[in-house]
């Protein structure tokens, strides 16, 4: 087991293609990361997020031969999961058999606010459960395309190249979306009175 821990993602892909058992190491490496990402991105319940991850892993496994070594495996895995999450939401949007309620329920929204605050020169007025809830509400109010880039940048710690690869958008578009997302987030935060002042310059 330990010998596989030191292997790179690309090496794990190669050995998985030789023996399916080795796919476990890839899954273990990414399960919690992708699960967290799906919950942040979609706000679905844990059960729904697990369904999405399961389908994503099948898709990753089926498409291993299409993985481009020039791409980071994590970007590729995030891309597949991202698309799977979007498909899942679309599929279950109008069905009553599955609960796809938007219930973020995680506490790291505050950290998003903190990172954003330092990034766009804003000061946080208070830190409390109420604040976390407000941040969540603001995130929900943002357009999906803005949520995506903010989550990937500030919560998943992805750089612009990785975000570009995950969302399949040009770098310039990612940068534009990021700026607009931050601006819109800051404006909404101001309306919600959770910021003392905003200085975009």
């Amino acid at each position, binding site marked *: 087991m330990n010998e596989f821990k030191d292997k790179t993602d690309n090496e794990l892909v190669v050995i998985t*293609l030789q023996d*399916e*058992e080795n*796919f*476990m190491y890839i*899954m*273990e490496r990414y*399960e*919690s990361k992708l*699960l967290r990402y799906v919950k942040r991105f979609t706000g679905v319940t844990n059960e729904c997020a*697990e369904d999405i*991850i*399961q389908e994503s*892993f*099948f898709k990753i*496994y*089926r*498409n*291993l*031969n*299409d993985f*481009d070594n020039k791409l980071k495996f994590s970007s590729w895995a995030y891309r597949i999961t991202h698309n799977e999450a979007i498909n899942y939401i679309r599929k279950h949007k109008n069905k009553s058999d599955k609960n796809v309620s938007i219930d973020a329920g995680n506490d790291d929204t505050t950290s998003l606010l903190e990172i954003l605050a330092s990034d766009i020169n804003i000061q946080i007025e208070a830190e409390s459960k109420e604040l976390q809830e407000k941040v969540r509400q603001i995130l929900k109010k943002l357009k999906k395309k803005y949520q995506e880039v903010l989550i990937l940048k500030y919560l998943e710690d992805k750089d612009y190249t990785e975000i*570009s690869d995950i969302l*399949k*958008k*040009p*770098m*310039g*578009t990612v940068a534009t979306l990021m700026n607009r997302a931050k601006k819109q987030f800051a404006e909404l935060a101001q309306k919600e009175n959770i910021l003392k002042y905003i200085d975009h310059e």
Partner: protein
Amino acid sequence: MNNISKNVLEKIKKDHIKPIPHWQFALLHVVVWLGLVASIVLGSFSVGIVLSEIFGTDWDHVSRIGRDGIPGIVFVLPYIWFVTLGITLFLSSILAKHIKKSYKFGPLIIMGGSVLVSMILGSILYATHASENFEQALRQNFAPYKSMQEARDGMWMAPENGMIIGLIISIDNDTMLIISDITGQAWEVDIEAAKKPRKFEPIIGNGIMAIGEVIEENLFKADEIRMRNPNKIPGMPKMIPTHAPGLKPILPIVSQE
């Protein structure tokens, strides 16, 4: 071992799920590339044909083919090639999205690139007459296209508006030509006072457009003569009559060879 990972691995083993073979992805990529190249090439031919239609049209006489209040320009535009160009550009932008890393360029650059490549290649095809040859081959081998284009080219036959078009079937001392129009009808065309192209040489089998007026039945006095591609005169050359029905005894065909 986490539950999700465990379940996935168990299902992979139980259902004997295997990664899709590499060759299938390779084949798919080849198909996408071929489709992209094909759509760009067809788009380029469309541009070339549109250019040859635009530069080959007698715009100063387009008004003569207008009818029922509809301007002549409406009848002469090569719609089918505009549509083909639109479809190929749409297809190439869709196919380009399926090429790895093409997303790095953005849809506008991909679309703009397709347009630019089609314009450049199309201009080359036009300049080398390759697009014209392609169009001719299409006429000869694709009957629905042929009949559609013939209907369009036939618009230029408008004796009531002082314009006839046809193939020279006989020549009388360089002042009177006998042409067969698109219906096979023979016309005597008086060209004595007509303005002619600088290198005009009446040769049997050549296509001409005559602008002037009908003097009497089957007799046309031309004010101007223009050369026309015989391949773009509908129904030609199979309709060249061996004699001109309804005319006085026809002059013997004089070869210019």
